[in-house]
């Protein structure tokens, strides 16, 4: 080995570490699991050579390959928050009807692929009898993208799985049917970070008060400059409280986003009464017909009301009813609103537009109506 800069030579322990032929750990750094053994033989045979698909009934897809082979998919909803027992039941169904193969969709549905059309009906019966609703295809309300909430997250203002259960109970029939103008993607998030993501309709926690700071412990559990740097509006400053180094928040500047809380657990922003819900609409990731769009806020100040959040699900219901009645074929929620105009959206859903919904953040001006286009 070459000597180090300055002429110092490596110590023996350094040499040991650098030249040891095997790592101290026996891990195989394999990355993603391999997939070929998880593809049905009919899929492997026709990989990349598919011709078209049809949706014979809600919850069932039929894909036909260039070779003429056909494969049926039965799709069913799951809670996403599963147990090994539940997964073993799905494996039993896969073994019985799908030659031992199954997969999951990005929206937490389970899918069984089979080349045998006569397996489709019994599979549907068995899934339904075990409590897994068959659906989630085509122009339906698909399942809710969500994360962990009170079950596991370290910064949640509410629960996720409970909200999802409440929402999906409410929209259950629309998951199993294909009666909407186009797909409706839902999401829910337990803080402003919005891990559930953009969606046609999203319910997202909104904090309404600045964080409450634990000055006694802040300096020992937080790296102060990190918390200061996280604030998007520079509202956090170092200070001294009771002789201890700590941070203070300029409450007039604070926008209650909660970013500091993620960096510093001593800056508690969650509050059982003051962390509330907001409803957002119009998010769209697909490029079809219109460019992808972010969602807009259409309701806020809704209470965080476990275990079933009735106030929030009621608003979802209003939006879905208006959309189902007024949307034209292929219009996603955002596209429907663009056509009918926001004024009619608020009228038809019974929601209220207020001045807090006017953008005041970084690109606010781009959302102003810079035209004489008016809807009366």
């Amino acid at each position, binding site marked *: 080995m*070459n000597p*180090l*800069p300055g002429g110092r030579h*490596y*110590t023996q*322990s*350094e040499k040991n*570490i*650098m030249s*040891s032929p095997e*790592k*101290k*750990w026996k891990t195989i750094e394999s990355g993603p699991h391999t997939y070929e053994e998880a593809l049905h033989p009919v899929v492997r045979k026709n990989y990349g050579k598919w011709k078209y698909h049809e949706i014979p009934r809600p919850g069932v897809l039929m894909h036909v390959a260039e070779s003429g082979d056909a494969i049926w998919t039965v799709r069913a909803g799951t809670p996403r928050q599963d147990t090994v027992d539940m997964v073993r039941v799905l494996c039993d169904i896969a073994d019985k009807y799908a030659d031992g193969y199954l997969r999951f969709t990005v929206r937490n549905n389970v899918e069984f692929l089979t080349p045998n059309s006569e397996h489709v009906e019994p599979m549907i019966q068995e899934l339904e009898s075990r409590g897994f609703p068959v659906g989630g295809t085509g122009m339906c309300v698909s399942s809710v993208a969500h994360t962990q909430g009170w079950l596991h997250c*370290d*910064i949640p203002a509410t629960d996720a799985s409970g909200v999802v259960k409440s929402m999906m109970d409410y929209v259950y029939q629309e998951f199993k049917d294909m009666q909407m103008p186009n797909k409706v993607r839902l999401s829910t998030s337990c803080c402003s*970070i919005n*891990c559930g993501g953009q969606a046609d309709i999203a319910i997202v926690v909104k904090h309404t008060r600045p964080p409450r700071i634990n000055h006694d412990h802040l300096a*020992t*559990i*937080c*790296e*102060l*400059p*990190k918390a200061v740097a996280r604030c998007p509006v520079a509202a956090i400053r170092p200070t001294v409280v009771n002789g201890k180094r700590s941070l203070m928040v300029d409450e007039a500047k604070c926008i209650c986003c909660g970013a500091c809380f*993620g*960096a*510093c*657990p001593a800056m508690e922003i969650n509050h059982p009464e003051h962390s509330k819900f907001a409803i957002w609409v119009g998010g769209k990731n697909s490029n079809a017909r219109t460019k992808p769009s972010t969602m807009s806020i259409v309701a806020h100040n809704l209470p965080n009301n476990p275990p079933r959040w009735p106030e929030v699900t009621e608003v979802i219901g209003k939006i879905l009813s208006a959309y189902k009645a007024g949307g034209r074929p292929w219009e996603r929620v955002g596209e429907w609103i663009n056509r009918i105009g926001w004024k009619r959206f608020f009228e038809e859903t019974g929601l209220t537009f207020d001045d807090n919904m006017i953008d005041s953040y970084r690109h606010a001006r781009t959302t102003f109506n810079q035209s004489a286009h008016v809807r009366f």
Partner: protein
Amino acid sequence: MGIEVNGVNYEVDENGYLVNLEDWNEDVAVKLAEGEEIEMGEAHWDLVKFLRNYYEEYQIAPAVKVLTKAIASEKGMDKKEASEFLYGMFPKGPALQACKIAGLPKPTGCV
């Protein structure tokens, strides 16, 4: 929860990090390292010194890329070698073990 060093009890949290950072001294560091099954050699002490100086100056633990850059430049290694060297010294990672042994606060967050 605590560790005992030279007859004195020092409080640690459930992850083994010092609760009161002012409690740190080199004997405490050795004890913390023992808990991680690490024997402190010259390279380990170099790194602990680097971490503590950085924290004193900037009030934050250095980002891992800062750490590997420092190791790379001091030892004439490239980034990948420096990273492997770091994990060779601290198999459970610089954040978990190096920062703990150096008496820095526990890194936070998963978002």
